[in-house]
Each structure stands twice: as structure tokens, then as C-alpha cells.
């Protein structure tokens, strides 16, 4: 009876109530999408590299080493010599190692020199391997393998010729030694998608006639001759390392960090990611804070609307009283109304969230490499919903108490 009354009363004020519901559901959706993006960003982020035990590079902060070696953000302060790399690889604890050489680019995409082991050893998302989508891994010196994103954005296919530029933003190109696309990788959702991968020997080859960042004028070694040269790299940027036993990781890490002949740093990728995330976490808490404030604002808005509707509804309440409703019933009715509005808003916000996420998901994935998981709501969301309903009951108490006084004072006749 009370329920039906309250519902029909709400229905009679469809426009005002509808607007309130929409306002609240948008603020709830804002909160939930921030939360979803936050957790998805965290998972994509930590899923970027797995099963690599250590990353080594020149002495740098762990976050910096992580950023340039895995995310290809920023630059290495220094390279490490091939000799030191071999010293590390020859350590008893080391199971496998993959060298990486960075520094050149192609149309804004980073070029990474490595060997074929990279494709077998680099794992992401809890142990998934990189698969080749089309073509094959590099066989020839001038073969290049493209990440899915590079191929898609540049419209490259197998056999497309390409020229590697020296440095990251430079006009000098290694145009005397053109490459050819030999393979395209499957999409991984990791920075590999946006990487142009060549062999380490190729990196050496394109720098044969170069010295200190510029091409030596008039000097051009014919490609045939370069092919015959010993193209063992002199230095590399970083290396991924796997150990035989996890129990020896820290010993090896200490050994590398204290390696007397060259200043190197060894990091545990997961540990460095976590460290970086603690920095990013400040921003994410800020976003979360803002969306919580927005929810509060809408709650206050809801109260304001209820207040303003009270004076319009004095006649309605008089009728309720005439029909035998006690002032307490009037309070109950208003609180029930608040519950309705909040439940309705929650439902609408969930629908809105999943609708907008399923539309935006491919776009976010494509542009930011974050795979937003459109799945069921988390337990945490449920808590938030419960708190929200509770809060809305609380704030509805204010207009309800006012209505209580109105109905006691007014009784069945309105004295305006």
C-alpha cells in the first residue's frame, strides 16, 4: 500500500524525479568508470612483462630502467658493453638472457634490436607468448618484424620496404640500408605492439659508416661488404634475464649492482612496476577522490530537490493525512522515495557504465593499450552501492523531518 502510494507519487513527478535519477546515475557512473579504468590500467600495466627475473642496464633508477627497457618511454642514460653483458650471462645462476638495443626509430616508432630468443622469452599477461601473425621472424640481416600496432597504423604488410631513422627525432636516416618487413606479430596489448624489431646485427650494420651520431661523409660501405663483417654488437641498452632458481635472484642482483668494471643496475621487473605504480597511485587516488566528491554533490542535490518539492507537495501530504496516514507514515514515504531514487540511479548507472565501456573499450585499447575488463561488478562496487543507499536515506531524513512538521502543523488543511 505504502509502496504503491510512494511509487505513484514518484510517477506523478516523473520529470523532476527522472532528472534527479539521471544526475545521480551519471555521478555514480563517473565513480565506477574511474575505478574500472584504475584497476584495468593496473592489470595491463603489471601484465606487460612476466617471467623475466631481472632486467639489467646501465646504472639508473629502477623505474627509469623499467620505463625505457620495457615501455620504451624515455631513454637510457648509457649503454652497457657487450663484454659486461657476457660476464653476466656466464654467471652460474643465469638460465637465459636476451639482449636489447634501443635508440633508433621509424616514423615515431621505436626500433629495437634483439635476437630471436626475445620472441620465445618475452612473456606477458601471466606467461603468454608473443605469436607471429603473418610472415616469419627475421632470417636475413635486413628483415624486420613489426608489432601489430605499427603494421596497423602505418598500413604495412609483408615485404613493405622501410628505412630506419637514426635517433628518435632526427632527419638523418639510414637510407643506404633499406629493410623489409618479414613478419607481423599478433596484438599483445603491450609496448611490443608499437615496436619495430630487428636483429642486433642489423643495428650494428646500419651504424657501420656512422661515428658519434653522424654519418661519415663520403664513406659508404657496400651492403655486400657489410654482410661479410663481424656484426657482434659492441654494446647493448639492456637485457632481460631469467635465473635458474628464484632463491639466487638477489645474489645475482647484488653481484650485478656491485660489478666493479661497469656501473650497472639490475632490477626485478615486478618490483620496479610496483614502485612506479606507487607514484602513479597518487594521481589515481586524486581521481577517486574527485568522483567521490561528485557523488556527494549529487546526494546534496537530491536533498535540495526533495526540499523544494516539499512545499509543492503540501497538498499531497494533506490528502495522505486525510486518508489516515500518520505524520510518521509521511516520513516513511519520503525515505522510501529516497531509496527508490537511489536504487533506480544505481541500476541506470550500471547500464550506462557497461554500455559506454563496451563502446569505448576498443578505442581505449587502441589508443592507450589498456584493456578495460567489461565484466561483473566487484564486491567493492557493491559496498559503494550499499553505502550510497544508506547515505541517501540519511540525507532524506532532513526533508522528511520537515515534512513531518508540515504535516503536524498543517493537518488536513493547508495554511499557506
Amino acid at each position, binding site marked *: 500500500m505504502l509502496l504503491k502510494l510512494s511509487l505513484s507519487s514518484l510517477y506523478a513527478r516523473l520529470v523532476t524525479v527522472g532528472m534527479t535519477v539521471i544526475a545521480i546515475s551519471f555521478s555514480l557512473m563517473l565513480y565506477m568508470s574511474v575505478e574500472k579504468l584504475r584497476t584495468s590500467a593496473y592489470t595491463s600495466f603489471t601484465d606487460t612483462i612476466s617471467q623475466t*627475473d631481472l632486467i639489467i642496464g646501465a646504472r639508473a633508477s629502477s623505474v627509469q630502467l623499467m620505463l625505457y627497457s620495457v615501455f620504451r618511454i624515455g631513454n637510457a642514460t648509457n649503454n652497457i658493453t657487450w663484454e659486461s653483458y657476457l660476464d653476466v650471462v656466464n654467471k*652460474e645462476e643465469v638460465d637465459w638472457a636476451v639482449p636489447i638495443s634501443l635508440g633508433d626509430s621509424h616514423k615515431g616508432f621505436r626500433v629495437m634490436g634483439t635476437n630471436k630468443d626475445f620472441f620465445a622469452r618475452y612473456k606477458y599477461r601471466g606467461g603468454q607468448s608473443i605469436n607471429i601473425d603473418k610472415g616469419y621472424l627475421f632470417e636475413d640481416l635486413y628483415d624486420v618484424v613489426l608489432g601489430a600496432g605499427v603494421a596497423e597504423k602505418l598500413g604495412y604488410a609483408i615485404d613493405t620496404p622501410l628505412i630506419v631513422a637514426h635517433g628518435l627525432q632526427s632527419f638523418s636516416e639510414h637510407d643506404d640500408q633499406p629493410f623489409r618487413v618479414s613478419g607481423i606479430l599478433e596484438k599483445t596489448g603491450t609496448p611490443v605492439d608499437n615496436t619495430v624489431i630487428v636483429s642486433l646485427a642489423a643495428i650494428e650494420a646500419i651504424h657501420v659508416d656512422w661515428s658519434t651520431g653522424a654519418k661519415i661523409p663520403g664513406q659508404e660501405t657496400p651492403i655486400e661488404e657489410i654482410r661479410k663483417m663481424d656484426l657482434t654488437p659492441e654494446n647493448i641498452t639492456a637485457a632481460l634475464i631469467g635465473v635458474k*632458481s*628464484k*632463491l639466487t635472484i*638477489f645474489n645475482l642482483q647484488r653481484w650485478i649492482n656491485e660489478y*666493479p668494471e661497469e656501473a650497472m643496475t639490475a632490477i626485478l621487473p615486478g*618490483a620496479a612496476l610496483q614502485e612506479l605504480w606507487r607514484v602513479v597511485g597518487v594521481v589515481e587516488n586524486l581521481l577517486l577522490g574527485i568522483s567521490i566528491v561528485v557523488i556527494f554533490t549529487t546526494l546534496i542535490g537530491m536533498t535540495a530537490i526533495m526540499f523544494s518539492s516539499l512545499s509543492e507537495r503540501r497538498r499531497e501530504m494533506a490528502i495522505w493525512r486525510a486518508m489516515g496516514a500518520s505524520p510518521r507514515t509521511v516520513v516513511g514515504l519520503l525515505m522510501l522515495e529516497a531509496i527508490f531514487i537511489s536504487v533506480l540511479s544505481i541500476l541506470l548507472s550500471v547500464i550506462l557504465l557497461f554500455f559506454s565501456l563496451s563502446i569505448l573499450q576498443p578505442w581505449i585499447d587502441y589508443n592507450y593499450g589498456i584493456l578495460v575488463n567489461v565484466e561483473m561488478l566487484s564486491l567493492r562496487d557493491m559496498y559503494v552501492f550499499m553505502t550510497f543507499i544508506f547515505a541517501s536515506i540519511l540525507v532524506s531524513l532532513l526533508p522528511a523531518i520537515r515534512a513531518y512538521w508540515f504535516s503536524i502543523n498543517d493537518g488536513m488543511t493547508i495554511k499557506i
Partner: protein
Amino acid sequence: MKKSIYYSLLMSAMMSVAAAEETRQVDKHEHGVGELNIAVEGSAINLEFMIPGADIVGFEYEAKSDSDIALVNTALSKFQDFENIFTLSSSGNCNLVDAEIDINQGDEHEDEHDHEDERDHEDERDHEDEHDHEDEHEHEDEHEHEDEHDHDEHEEEAHNEFVAHYSFTCGNVKEIDRIDFPYFTTFPNSGELEIQFVSEVGSTSFEVEGDKPFIDLKGKI
């Protein structure tokens, strides 16, 4: 006269070349920040603490006076009972199989190496040998250099550091979902602990402080 100036110039140039050639590296050292490495594999869990002396006994110089030596000894004895430092969740059913507690003060770096060696032997008896020798060797080199040339740096480096290794075997290593650190109450001077953690699931890191003296390891082992 002129010649001697040239000679001395030449000499100093040569000396600076020589100085530039040797490696000079100093470990970072931060008061209030202890390091902890935790490695889990199979049924084994290893913890190694490296804590600056300031966090434990309140001073960083080599303990020479009786009272200082007493402080260091009390601290070392506290480390002997690992439950003063940390506790593993009891459901893990872990037994301490080995513990090495030590303090590095000033030039007594050697100690640390000895212990590491011992531990290595235990970890993987046969194949570590070779590398340990190498290890020792290089470190000795480093020491020589330091001794020869870097006398002033040497003093600077003479911070003491507590090093403690604990190895456990656990009946149910996967059941360990939390490690608490009574460390913060045992040593009131302690600051934070920077923790590196690795298991077959992957690696992660934590920063732990006295107001929340535990780490949550759910899903991490």
C-alpha cells in the same frame, strides 16, 4: 727548473689517468630505510635484511666503547630470535633451517662475504663454488683499490649495517598470506623497510612502515 715543472705536470697527468681508471663505487646508504629481500621457491622461503645501524642502535660508526658494543650485541641477540623481527603466517608451517646474523662495520666487509659464501653453499652446493671464488676475488680487488687511494671516502663509507639472513622450509608455502614485522616495535629507531619480493608467480615490491607493519601476500606465492 722548467723541466721539473714539466715532469710534475706529466706526473700529475699520469696520476689522474690512473685515478680515473680504477672503479670507485659507493653503495647507497639511507638512514631510516632498511632493505629486505624475500625469495620463495618450492618449499623454501629466504629473507635477507640489510638495515642501517642508525635504525637499530642509533649510531653508524664502528662500535668501540663498551656501551656501544653492548648495544650492538643486544641488537644482534634480538636478531637471533627471528620472531622479534618478523612472523610468517602460521598456516605456512615453516621451520627455520638457517640463520646468519652479522654486522658490517667499517672495513669488516669480509664477514659479509664469508657468510654469503656459506649460504650459497647451502643453496646450491656444487655449482656455486666457481662463481663465489670469482666473487671474492673481485671484491678483494675493490678493497685494494679503496685501501690504496680512497682514504677519505673510506671514512665516509664506514657506516655500519646489520645483515640478517633467514632460511625456512615450509610444509605449506602457499598458505603464507601475510608477514608481520614486529621489527618496528623491537627497534623503535627503525624507519621504513623497502621490500623486494620474488616467487614463481613473479616479483613485486612493498614499502612498509611502523603504522602498518605487515605485508599482504595473498596470490603472490
